[in-house]
């Protein structure tokens, strides 16, 4: 895989190929969760999960992920809240 997950998900909003690759990346996890259901429903479940993933990937706010300095700020804030609360 040349592209990172980050770029792929970003591209998925407009590019169906990237979307397909991301879903493919998670196919192992999907297959594993199929084990818990009965044989005759596995195909249906697999489809349902893929539809769900499609939604999740498309609607995920990639830009909301904090950068390094933002992360430090968040941790700092949490600390303050923690001390104030305590």
């Amino acid at each position, binding site marked *: 895989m040349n592209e990172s997950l980050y770029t792929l998900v970003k591209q998925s909003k407009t590019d169906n190929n990237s979307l397909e690759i991301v879903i493919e990346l998670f196919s192992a996890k999907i297959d594993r969760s199929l084990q818990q259901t009965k044989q005759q429903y596995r195909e249906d479940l697999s489809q349902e999960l893929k539809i769900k993933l499609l939604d999740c990937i498309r609607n995920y706010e990639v830009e909301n*992920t904090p950068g390094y*300095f933002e992360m430090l700020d968040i941790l700092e804030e949490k600390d303050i809240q923690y001390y104030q609360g305590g």
Partner: protein
Amino acid sequence: MKDLFSSSSTNVENYLNKFEKHLQNPVIKSFLEIPDNMDLLVEVIENPTNLSKKKLDDTFREYYFTIRFTNYLSQTIYFNAINYDKKVNLYLERNKSILDCQLKDRYVPLLDYLASKEWQEEGQEVYITSSNIADHLTSYSLYKAIQFLTENQRQLLNLTYIYGLNDSEIAVYLNKSQQAVSRSHKKALKKLKNSLKTDREGRGRNE
């Protein structure tokens, strides 16, 4: 972590001391355990330009995103799979069907098993496209009986049982009255019934 960078300047050491608490955060800790990322941080501390800061920021964002997003999707898959199962079970609970039940010694539901077995034994197509009712019969006695019907009666049975028309529709089609169609329909069935009966009795005598 400080030991790793004994060669680095006091700036870095000060920084690490200052933020030690935050550097214990699992995400930041694992991020900085990758040597390349640590180099980026050292670069920022030693030479805090916008470019180096942005590089560190972006690298971290990508790193954190991968963790967050993977976790998010894994959880989504896990919980949705469980919910789907619950939904299916609820549906089955409310719509019980014996044909759907799993057979003990086979891997298919009863319905599939019946279907496959039936066609194996018959050795014929599932759909017969013939419009002649004699081609649809599986009983030899009935096949013989149907040969005794008149052409009109056979046509009537074709229309009723193959094309699924009702008596009034057939009446329009054949340009007869509905009562006439109904009468000859009944007569045809009665004739078949009698033929089957005599056939059965005849066989009974022979045996």
